């Protein structure tokens, strides 16, 4: 399938440190990317997005960087807090139906564990 992996990568950080979560995407034609946060027992929650004509976008305590040359996306969280503990997914918008529409495909996900 498009999403492969038996294990969930884990990033463990100390409270107050900065976190960087990485994501590699496969389709060079993808033009829109989103980061989602998913807490236990909940659906994915939108964090920040970026279009392919940008290489950086900042939100409140979060920054997304896009490197189209190497098809890499990263999410930086400043001053990580215990409430940031969750699984983080990147998602890319891919062409579908011969270009008539798009579909959002999720990456593998990273578990962020914040130690108090």
């Amino acid at each position: 399938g498009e999403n492969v992996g038996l294990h969930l990568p884990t990033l463990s950080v100390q409270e107050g440190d900065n976190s960087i979560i990485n994501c590699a995407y496969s389709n060079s034609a993808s033009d829109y990317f989103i980061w989602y946060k998913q807490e236990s027992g909940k659906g994915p929650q939108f964090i920040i997005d970026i279009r392919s004509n940008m290489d950086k976008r900042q939100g409140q305590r979060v920054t997304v960087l896009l490197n189209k040359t190497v098809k890499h996306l990263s999410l930086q969280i400043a001053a990580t807090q215990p409430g940031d503990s969750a699984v983080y997914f990147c998602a890319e918008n891919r062409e579908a139906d011969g270009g008539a529409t798009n579909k959002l495909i999720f990456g593998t996900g990273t578990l962020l564990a914040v130690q108090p």
Partner: protein
Amino acid sequence: DTEVTQTPKHLVMGMTNKKSLKCEQHMGHRAMYWYKQKAKKPPELMFVYSYEKLSINESVPSRFSPECPNSSLLNLHLHALQPEDSALYLCASSPSRDRETSNSPLHFGNGTRLTVT
């Protein structure tokens, strides 16, 4: 709380049962989605509805049957499921799926946790 509401939150069904999952949004979104998520895995796209018409079916088995009665509602009818179909079923919506305007995030509900026995 999310703006996409899914019911029920939990569902246990036997392999011979027929059940339905329901999803509702009142954001005026014209695209709605079903995703399936297994434990420790990312959500996988199943169906996309655009303006109440089925736009994408990701080769989903016919024991899953989607329905979009109107622009606010999305159902997933289940029949003769297998234990491996046990998963979290997520509904999402977005303003549209037109190629020119589809660059907007999907809004997800909290899902229905389905167990097939």
